């Protein structure tokens, strides 16, 4: 089986954060329904991995898996990675222009000017505070809703959650050396540049469970400051490995002559 297998880990981030569990809030899919994967689109996916071996017993194929986490109710993953930064810059520029206009218009403070200032402040949105712990990926960014509009402190319920991040894959399948997972970096913008991949040893059939550690981010407000707090949750899945001998497709046995009819002679353009 030379082709790679993708497992989509779709997380309902809002509900998972609210109930502090991935159970019932995770939907798993893979592209191997044809080969026997079960429970697609639920949290109970069993990924079928059909191994094969040559007649002499040597392993003919192994399987490569890729896990792709997605978030339900966020900015679509197909939007370029710099989109939130770009949106934040646009709102900054707009606010500056409006401030300039306001400054030129009124030299004396007035109720009107104050209302106008308030309006500008709201349209400018809120930046997430950078702490030592949260420096990096989402720090200093503005909070954006699923439509790409910046949101203000009092409307953070509409915030688009950052995509879930798989931080570890472990459990029975890993401990019994059925699969060898590792995290890779890639220039792929859809998966945010990081993904987990594993090679599966298909020579030992059986059903093996494994666990994924998934990091979500919760928007919290303390002392008027907003922060994305990491929340680590786990989610279980399983691999069902079978293994069968490869076979000659023409003869269903050993190698033989090609089944070319000796009587017929299909010539080109005949």
């Amino acid at each position, binding site marked *: 089986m030379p082709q790679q297998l993708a497992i989509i880990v779709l997380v309902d981030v809002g509900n998972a954060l609210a109930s502090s569990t991935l159970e019932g809030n995770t939907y798993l899919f893979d592209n191997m329904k044809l080969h026997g994967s079960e429970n697609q689109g639920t949290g109970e996916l069993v990924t079928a991995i059909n191994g094969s071996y040559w007649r002499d017993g040597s392993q003919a194929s192994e399987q490569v898996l890729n896990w792709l986490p997605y978030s339900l109710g966020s900015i679509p993953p197909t939007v370029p990675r710099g989109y939130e930064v770009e949106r934040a810059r646009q709102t900054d520029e707009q606010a500056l222009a409006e401030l300039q206009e306001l400054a030129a218009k009124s030299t004396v403070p007035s109720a009107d000017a104050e209302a106008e200032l308030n309006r500008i402040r709201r349209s400018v949105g809120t930046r997430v505070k950078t702490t030592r712990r949260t420096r990096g990926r989402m720090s200093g960014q503005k909070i954006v809703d699923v439509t790409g509009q910046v949101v203000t402190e009092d409307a953070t319920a509409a915030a688009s959650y950052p995509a879930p991040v798989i931080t570890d894959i472990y459990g029975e399948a890993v401990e019994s050396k059925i699969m060898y997972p590792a995290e890779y970096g890639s220039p792929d913008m859809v998966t945010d540049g990081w993904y987990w991949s594993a090679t599966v040893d298909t020579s030992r059939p059986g059903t093996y469970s494994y666990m994924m550690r998934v990091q979500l981010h919760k928007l919290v407000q303390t002392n008027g400051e907003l922060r994305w707090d990491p929340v680590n949750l786990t989610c279980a899945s399983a691999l069902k490995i079978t293994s069968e001998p490869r076979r000659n497709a023409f003869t269903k046995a050993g190698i033989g002559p090609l089944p070319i009819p000796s009587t*017929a002679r299909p010539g080109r353009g005949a």
Partner: protein
Amino acid sequence: MKTQVNIIAVVDVIGALSVKTLLDGNLCMVDDGAFDSAHQGTADLITVVKPGQVVSWTALALDLQTPVEIKNISFEPANGHNGAAASGPAMSPPGAHRTTNGGAHGQAHGQGQAHGQGQEESEGDKLDLDVWTGVVPHWMTPGVPYQYRLELQMYEGSNSVMSIDSPALMCQ
């Protein structure tokens, strides 16, 4: 002389499923034969071989994550097709296709049938276990292209099996 000739059918599965044909560049066949195979990189590949050589077919998906497998390869006469035109979703399931051809082609034909009838075939039934390999028989007439039908299974569904009749094997 090489003992084995490999033929790889590279399939743009998304392209093929979108326009429902393996033509228009959705199928690209290449071999590594030592002789002058014609039409490399097209669906009309004529692989030049010698009797006794082993020919091996492999399908490869352009999109790494869409399963594509060879469903069947058959050397039956082009039965109304003239070979130049080809493709589209297979008109009938391969099993039915075989029975319409009857058993008129002797023992060699029977071997070809084994694939369709020896077992209950469901869509994509462990096709990944199949190794499409065979020896070039000595009874082929040199210089004559023997066209074959290549059937590909692309995941599942009503249009998932497509075939092409234009590639051929030719003895030197």
